[in-house]
């Protein structure tokens, strides 16, 4: 074993040997090494968030025809650090009647629920925190803690707007968990395992699930944007309706925790997407040189994150009823039928070559997508026909120009 073939275990053995040489017990050495791994992973992702904030502000600035941060440091790179220093100096204000323990626990839990996700992500060949055999379910379970943090923040702030904001967010998160879990079932079905490393291994040789099951990838992508609460699903922040959301009573670093959790979570869903649908660290030469795989992995996650930012920068917000319609009337039935079809096709094509299997799965996905679009088109047309006569009647009565048929209502 050398550094280039297995960096994490190489460093682990070297450090373990060093610590054992100091006369520590083997169990203590193991404990210290695990603790070190956790610290490196958590600190690395938190520090990475500083860069993410700069990147997101820069990209959003460009989309909106601005320059974005450009004063502090080259290209404004130091700007988030300056903001961070500012937020450290802010005063904490706890509202009267706040419930002390849940109030202070909520921001910590919000960040922890995102950081815990990194425990099962394979960053490269043999570069994974815990190769849990129920990794996908673990991701779903940790999502529950994020919801809990928002409930606690909203309730313990002793503020009606915070509570209303929390209700809205939870209604959104709980609903969008359904299509997300169903879409995650497709890679689990195809790879025959719930472990993240096994899912990555099953996508070797370009058999990426994005190509094999594009519809599941789309459903997962949309519902994970909703889970993060980014535009077009940004009901978490609604200044015009609920002041700001569940976090209005938080100030200083406590607010900063929610902010960091949001930014890190939106990169984390890109990381999960890259793992589950884009083959993770797979790429030429990645199996022998894990660091190369790590680079591939970050590039893939980065591309997904960029698409997420394009969504955020260019799409307007949905109303809450439109969001619930999209979830319960489109995404959930679509992902349910997709799971059934994929399971059937995958079983039928179990004994043929990988290429034929891939083409069969892809075409079944396309058929399901085509049928879904056709059903939606007809439902929309029916609704427009119901609404259009009323519109024409009203327009005629008020004496203005008649509307064109089909322009009223909409899906």
């Amino acid at each position, binding site marked *: 074993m050398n550094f280039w073939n297995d960096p994490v275990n190489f460093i682990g053995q070297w450090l373990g040997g060093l610590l054992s040489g100091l006369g520590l017990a083997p169990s203590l050495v193991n404990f210290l090494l695990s603790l070190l791994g956790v610290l490196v992973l958590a600190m690395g992702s938190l520090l990475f968030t500083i860069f993410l904030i700069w990147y997101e502000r820069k990209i959003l600035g460009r989309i909106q025809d601005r320059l974005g941060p450009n004063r502090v440091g080259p290209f404004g790179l130091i700007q988030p650090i300056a903001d961070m220093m500012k937020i450290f100096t802010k005063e904490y204000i706890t509202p009267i009647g706040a*419930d002390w323990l849940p109030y202070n626990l909520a921001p910590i839990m919000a960040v922890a629920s995102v950081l815990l996700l990194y425990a099962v992500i394979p960053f490269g060949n043999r570069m994974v925190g815990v190769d849990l055999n*129920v990794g996908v379910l*673990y991701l779903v*379970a940790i999502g*529950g803690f994020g*919801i*809990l943090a928002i409930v*606690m923040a909203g309730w313990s702030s002793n503020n009606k707007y915070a509570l209303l904001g929390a209700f809205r967010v939870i209604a959104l998160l709980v609903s969008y*968990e359904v299509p997300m879990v169903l879409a995650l079932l497709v890679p689990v079905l195809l790879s025959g395992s719930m*472990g993240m490393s096994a899912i990555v291994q099953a996508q070797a040789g370009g058999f990426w699930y994005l190509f094999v099951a594009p519809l599941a990838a789309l459903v997962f992508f949309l519902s994970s944007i909703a889970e993060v609460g980014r535009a077009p699903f940004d009901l978490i922040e609604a200044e015009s309706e609920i002041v700001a959301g569940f976090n209005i009573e938080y100030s200083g670093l406590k607010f900063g925790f929610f902010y960091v959790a949001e930014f890190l979570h939106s990169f984390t869903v890109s990381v999960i997407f890259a793992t589950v649908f884009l083959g993770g660290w797979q790429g030429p030469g990645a199996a022998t040189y894990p660091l190369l795989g790590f680079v591939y992995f970050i590039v893939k996650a980065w591309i997904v994150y960029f698409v997420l930012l394009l969504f955020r920068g260019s799409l307007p917000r949905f109303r809450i009823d439109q969001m619930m319609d999209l979830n319960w009337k489109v995404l959930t039935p679509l992902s349910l039928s997709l799971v059934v079809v994929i399971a059937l096709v995958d079983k039928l094509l179990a004994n043929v070559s990988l290429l034929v299997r891939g083409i069969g799965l892809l075409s079944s996905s396309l058929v399901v997508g085509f049928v879904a679009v056709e059903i939606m088109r007809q439902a929309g047309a029916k609704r427009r026909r119901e609404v259009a006569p009323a519109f024409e009647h009203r327009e005629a009565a008020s004496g203005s120009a008649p509307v064109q048929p089909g322009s009223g209502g909409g899906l």
Partner: protein
Amino acid sequence: MTSIQIIFLLAAAGTLAAGVFVVSSPKILHAALWLIVSLFGIAIMFALLQANFFAVIQVVVYIGAIAILIIFGVMLTRRIMQDTGLQLTRFWWGAALASLGIFAGLITMLSGWKAADIALPEMSSSGTTQAISQLGQALVSPDAYVLPFEAASILLVVAMIGAIYIALDRK
């Protein structure tokens, strides 16, 4: 004492303490939050028994779904948040007696249980994966649990239809 035993004792003590707080805390929302702590303690027990699948399912179902629903129900119920009355009824001694009796019965039963003396076999990671697929096959196999499984799903569908009927807005 190994580290597993230390973790077990800490988790067990935490679970029991949280369980006591569930029934004794005056604010009902605190009770719900303590319930979550208690349920999480049980997830730790499953993890210690190398039942990863059950540990994760415990968190998904009980914390991610049921506890959130309970909290939702509590928050949406009027005037339940200010409820700070005495937590004891007049017959608290009766309840204490009954629970002590049950506890003593469980202790005497479990002390004679042979399986308690058998050490936990070390399970490989492929072993736990196999265990999940065996569980899945047992749930749908006619020789095992297909009947209770289907009965449970019918019960859930009935409950769902009932909930929709109650919530339906009749015009």
